[in-house]
């Protein structure tokens, strides 16, 4: 069975290691915070200027001066810090953030990513995504394997305007976990009950399939 969005987040949470500073994009990535083991120390950075981001506030405790990059009201954990946008992107550009998790519309087998613009449609902007993908050493893309029309989002080459080049290393979709190496997708794990054949069919780019493809554990 293909994973739900929650399950994609759950699988990605296993990539979050003790001592990591993590930047979570909007959408599925935001859900990852809910699944991180609570016996490890992790801090979430939001590019609008907080490190040590906590959960949503209790009703009645919302503070307009305390939001995340999705403009949602949040809380600050003990030990948190606030800072300006320039220092925030110093953390990102200076590779002090250990892991960036974000969504994508397309990923190419050379690690290119497109997630900000569809020609002909209203363009909202790249926000911090271009800084994040250009700088992060460790980027995981969280997305559905195919789009609503059923077309693969894992391509030989992106068709949409790019957000960044040669930057994605790992992808977790509703069907599989894949790694990008030497300009190819490498299948690492498949979703429980999903066959290699299904994944192959849903992947337009070159897919390297090892003899053994374990089912992922959540």
């Amino acid at each position, binding site marked *: 069975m293909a994973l739900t969005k929650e399950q994609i987040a759950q699988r990605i949470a296993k990539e979050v290691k003790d001592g990591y500073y993590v930047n979570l994009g909007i959408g599925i990535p935001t859900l990852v915070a809910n699944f991180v083991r609570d016996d490890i120390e992790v801090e979430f950075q939001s590019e609008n200027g*907080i490190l040590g981001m906590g959960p949503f506030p209790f009703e009645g405790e919302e503070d307009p001066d305390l939001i995340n990059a999705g403009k949602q009201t949040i809380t600050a954990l003990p030990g948190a810090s606030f800072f300006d946008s320039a220092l925030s992107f110093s953390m990102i550009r200076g590779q002090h953030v250990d892991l960036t998790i974000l969504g994508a519309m397309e990923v190419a087998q050379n690690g290119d990513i497109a997630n900000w613009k569809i020609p002909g449609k209203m363009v909202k902007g790249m926000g911090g995504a271009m800084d994040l993908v250009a700088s992060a050493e460790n980027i995981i893309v969280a997305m559905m394997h195919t789009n609503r029309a059923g077309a693969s989002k894992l391509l030989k080459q992106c068709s949409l305007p790019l957000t960044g080049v040669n930057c994605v290393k790992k992808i977790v979709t509703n069907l599989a976990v894949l790694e990008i190496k030497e300009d190819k997708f490498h299948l690492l794990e498949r979703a429980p009950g999903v066959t290699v054949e299904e994944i192959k069919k849903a992947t337009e780019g070159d897919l390297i399939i090892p003899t053994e493809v374990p089912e992922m554990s959540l």
Partner: protein
Amino acid sequence: MITKTVKNVTEACKGVKDGMTFMLGGFGLSGIPENAIAELVRLNVKDVTCISNNAGVDDFGLGLLLQKKQIKKMISSYVGENAEFERQMLSGELEVELIPQGTLAQRARAAQSGIPAFYTPAGYGTEVAEGKESREFNGKMHILEHAFKADFAFVKAWKGDTAGNLIFKGTARNFNPNMCGAANITVAEVEELVPAGSLDPNQIHIPGILVQRIFEGEKYEKRIEQRTVRKR
């Protein structure tokens, strides 16, 4: 101490003219210079270019200027939540330049710092890099970005003193400190204005030298864009 206080928002916005370029602090609706924006609407200044991370919502923030068609061009990283913005953009009435958020912050800080240009990896290989010089440093490609130039910077702080020193609160800090001193005239509005000497000099985020005019905002709505809560 050099005094930076002005009587009110009207005095603070003196000299604002059609066709000027403004920088405005804030992320979403958090930390936006509400009082200055209201005054710019009242002054009905036209054809302005606004450098601001976002463009407000339909009936608040920069959305208020958009409603009155005062903005000629927006330079932003994300302009999502605004139907009138979308209409003007698609009809070609509004020019929009989208730039990466970190580049926006750094171009402001560069302007503040007298750094005319710097290299950043953000946007390399994308349409953001079109027409820009690119260059390899440490085996990685970067593009050349320039400091902003603007006539006025409008920022909002939590507390300020009569010498123009500023302290920000929470994530309402965002771009506000980086825009101080990044334009010819920096106008700071604060929730609480105190006499010089009342703030701990170690805790001042932005020294008064980067602020030309300061005033206490008459009222702050501080609207919340996405009210998200959890159950007790």
